[in-house]
C-alpha cells in the first residue's frame, strides 16, 4: 500500500544559493544556505483548507539572521524544546542561538575557527534541552560542548578512526551520540560513560546522515551507498536495509511516531519509507536538483495529516502533505 503526498506550497528562491540545511521547532522552520543569512519561516499558521485567505502565505518569513556566516552556512540544528539552535559556517565558525518567548532568535555565543584547521566544525546536533552540542570535525573527532557557558566549553571528546565526520545525531533521550564518516564508519557513543558503545558494520561509502528514532530504539544511517541501514541501538545489530534510492542519500528524518522515515537524494528524489514494512511507500520528484535537506514538520493540532519540507540546490522550500483519505 502506498501513500500519497501532495505538494501544498513552495517558497521559490527562499535563499539566493543552495539550501544546505533545515531545522524545525514546534512553530518555526530554520533554513541555512550558501548565503550568509539564516532564514526563519513560521509554520504555525498552516491550514488544511485551501479556500481560506491565509493559505496564500501559510509559511511567512518571520526573521532573517543577517550576515551571520560570511562564507555561508552548511549545518543548522535545533534542540527538541525549540529554545536553542546551533549553526556552523564554511569559515569554520560555530554559533549558538537562543529563542525568546515571542519566537525571536538572538545570538548567544560563538566558537571562532582555529586558523590552521579548516573545517574544524562540521555537522552539529543538540540534545533535548540544548545544553549539549555535538560537533564533528574533519579529522573524525566528535567534540561535545556545554552551551550554557559563554563561549561554549568543551565537555567531552570522542575519538574515531580519523575519517571526516559527515553527520552526527544525539538521541532524543540524550543517552547516545551517533556519527557517520567519510569512510563509511558509523559509531554510537554512550554519553554517560563517554565510551564507544557500538562500532556498526559500516556502509563502506560516505555516511551523510545518521538519525535516532524518536523512541531511541533504532538508528538510521544512509549516504553514498544508496541504502538506508537500520540498526538496533541496544544490540548494535543491523536490522534492516531499505533499498530503492538510485543516487546518494543526503538527508534522513523520522516522523514523530517513528513509523515513517523520510529521505532526500542527490538526484532530487524524496522518499517516504514505512519502517514496519521496510519498504518505500511514496516518492516525490520535483526536480533533478540535489535535495540537501528533508525534514518533517512537527505535528500540530490543527493539521490532521503530516507535512514535510524539502530543500536543496533548487533554492526552493517545498512543502508536502499527506493526501487525505488513504
Amino acid at each position, binding site marked *: 500500500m502506498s501513500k500519497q503526498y501532495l505538494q501544498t506550497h513552495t517558497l521559490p528562491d527562499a535563499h539566493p*544559493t543552495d539550501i544546505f540545511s533545515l531545522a524545525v521547532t514546534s512553530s518555526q522552520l530554520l533554513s541555512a544556505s550558501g548565503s*550568509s543569512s539564516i532564514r526563519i519561516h513560521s509554520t504555525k499558521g498552516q491550514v488544511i483548507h485551501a479556500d481560506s485567505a491565509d493559505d496564500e502565505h501559510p509559511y511567512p518569513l518571520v526573521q532573517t539572521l543577517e550576515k551571520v556566516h560570511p562564507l555561508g552556512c552548511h549545518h543548522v540544528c535545533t534542540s527538541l524544546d525549540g529554545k536553542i539552535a546551533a549553526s556552523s559556517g564554511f569559515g569554520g565558525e560555530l554559533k549558538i542561538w537562543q529563542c525568546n518567548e515571542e519566537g525571536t532568535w538572538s545570538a548567544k555565543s560563538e566558537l571562532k575557527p582555529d586558523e590552521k584547521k579548516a*573545517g574544524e566544525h562540521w555537522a552539529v546536533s543538540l540534545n533535548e534541552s540544548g545544553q549539549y552540542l555535538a560537533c564533528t570535525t*574533519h579529522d573524525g573527532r566528535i567534540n561535545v560542548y556545554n552551551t550554557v557557558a559563554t563561549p561554549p566549553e568543551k565537555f567531552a571528546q570522542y575519538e574515531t578512526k580519523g575519517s571526516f565526520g559527515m553527520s552526527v545525531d544525539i538521541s532524543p533521550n540524550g543517552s547516545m551520540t551517533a556519527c557517520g564518516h567519510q569512510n563509511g564508519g558509523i559509531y554510537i557513543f554512550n554519553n554517560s560513560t563517554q565510551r564507544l558503545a557500538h562500532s556498526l558494520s559500516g556502509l563502506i561509502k560516505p555516511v551523510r546522515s545518521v538519525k535516532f528514532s524518536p523512541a531511541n530504539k533504532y538508528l538510521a544511517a544512509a549516504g553514498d551507498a544508496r541504502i538506508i541501514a537500520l540498526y538496533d541501538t541496544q544490540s548494535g545489530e543491523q536490522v534492516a536495509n531499505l533499498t530503492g534510492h*538510485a*543516487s546518494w542519500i543526503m538527508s534522513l528524518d523520522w516522523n514523530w511516531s517513528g513509523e515513517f522515515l523520510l529521505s532526500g537524494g542527490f538526484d532530487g528524489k524524496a522518499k517516504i519509507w514505512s519502517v514496519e514494512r521496510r519498504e518505500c511507500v511514496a516518492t516525490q520528484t520535483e526536480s*533533478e536538483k540535489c535535495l540537501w535537506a528533508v525534514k518533517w514538520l512537527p505535528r500540530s493540532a490543527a493539521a490532521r495529516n503530516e507535512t514535510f519540507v524539502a530543500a536543496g540546490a533548487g533554492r526552493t522550500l517545498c512543502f508536502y502533505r499527506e493526501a487525505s483519505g488513504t
Partner: protein
Amino acid sequence: MNIDDDGLDHLLASDDILDFSSQETLQSSADEPFCMSEDELLLETHADTPGVDSFDELDVADYLGLSAVGLPQAASGALLPTTRQIQHDKLHPKKARLSKKQKASSFSHPQGSPRERIEAIFRQISTDLDDGEAEIGISLNMRSRQPLQSQAVLTADSSDTRIRSKRLSFPGRTEDEAWRFTIVIRILELIHGALCTGFTISKRDIYYRDPALFGNQRHVDRYVDDIAFTFGVPRSALNVTAMVKGLVAGAVSFCRRDGSTVTASGDREGLLVPSLKDILSVDLTSAKWVIVIEKEASFRSLAASSFWDRLSFEGVLITGKGYPDVATRALLRCFCTPSPQNGFASPPCFALVDHDPDGLAIMSVYKHGSIALAHESAELKVPQLQWLGLRDEHMTFATADAHASQGLLILSMRDRSKAKKMLERGVMQGDGSLAHKDDEEVSAALRVMLMLNIKAELQLLDAAPGGTAQLVGDELDRLALSVAKQQKYE
C-alpha cells in the same frame, strides 16, 4: 657623474616610506649554497655575459672592480661571515647607517626605459663607490601579497603608501642581505644584457647562468617580478619570459614577424605557445570558439580523439599545463579580445578544468589574473571566460555509475583550506561588479564541493560514454544554442 635632481627627489620620497624597523623578515638563507665570494662572482659575471660591451659609456666591470677595491672586506669572501661582520663593523662605524638614507640609489626613478634605469642604478652605485661611501644599496618595491581586489584599489591610486618598499644594502647587516643584493645586481645585469642585445631570456635561463648564486629558481622568479614591479613595467618589457610551457592546437594560424606562417591545425600534438612579440598577426577567421584546458593529458586525449575533425575546422584548444604562464595567458587574451592583431575576432572562450579548488583557481587566474603578478594583470585578463566544466551536473552520472564513481576523490585538508580561502576572497569582492554573477557560480561550486567532500579530475570523463569529446561537443552545442536564443531575443 651627476644625478638629476628629479632622481634625488624621488629618492627622498621613497625613503620616507622606508621603514627599517618593519623590514620584511627575510627568509634565512642558511640552507642555500653560498660559496662564491662577491668579487669572484662579479668577475665571472663580466666574463660570460654577452652584451656588456654595448653598455654605452659605462662598463659594469669597472664598477665591479671598484666594488672590490672600494670595499676591501668584500674581497675577503673566504672569511667566515661572522668575521666579516666584525671586520665590517670595525672599518665602518655607525657612519654607515647614517649615510644610508641619503644615498639610496634611485631605483624607483619614474622616467626612462628599463635599460636607462638599470644604467642609472649602476651609475649611482658607481658614484657612491667613488665617494667612498661605506655602503651601497638599492630599493625595491615589494609586490603586495594581498588578494586581487585590494590590489586593484592599490594600483588605481599609485600614490598609495601601502606599496611596501625594501632596501637591500651591500655589504649590509647580514650575509643574507649581501647575498640578496648580489642576486638583484646580477639579475639586473643579465636583464641589461638582454635589453641591449634584444634577445629574450627566460627566468630559467637566468637561474642557470649562476645556479650556485641563486640557489633556487624561486629567488630568481621573485626578484625578476619585483624588479618589473618597481619599474612599473610588465615583465616582458625586461625581455624576460617564463619558460614556455603552453600548447595550442586547432583552427588558428600565426604570421610571424619574420614573414613565415605556421598553422596549429596541422598537428594533433599542438604547437608550443609562441611569444606574442614574435607574432605579427593571428588568423582566427574560422575559429568559432576557444577552449582552455587545465591539463596537458586532457588536451592530448581530446586532440587525439575524433573530436579533432571538428576542432581543426572550427575551434582552438589551448592549455597552460596547470597554473598558466604569462605567455599562455597573453595568447588567450590575444585570441579573445578584438584587436588589429587578431583581425578583430572575439570567439567565445571556455574553460575546462578539474572539479577541485585548484581547477577553479586556475580558471580564476585566466579570468582575473594572479595575485603574484597583479601589477601586470590588466593585459592578461580574460574576464569573458566561461566555465564549461567540470561542473556539478557532469558529476551526476558518476554518482550512479559504480565504475565512474571511482574517479571521484576525497578532498584533502589542503583542498579544503584552499576552498575556504577562495570563498573568503570571493566574499570580499562581492561588490556587485560585472563579474560578480560568474564568481558567485564558482563560490557556489566550492561550497557544494565542501559539502560533498568530493572532487573530480577531468580524467573522470574518460569513463563516461563518449568521454571528454562528447561532453565538450554537447556543451558547445548547448552554449551555441543559448547564444543564438539570446541574440534572437535581443
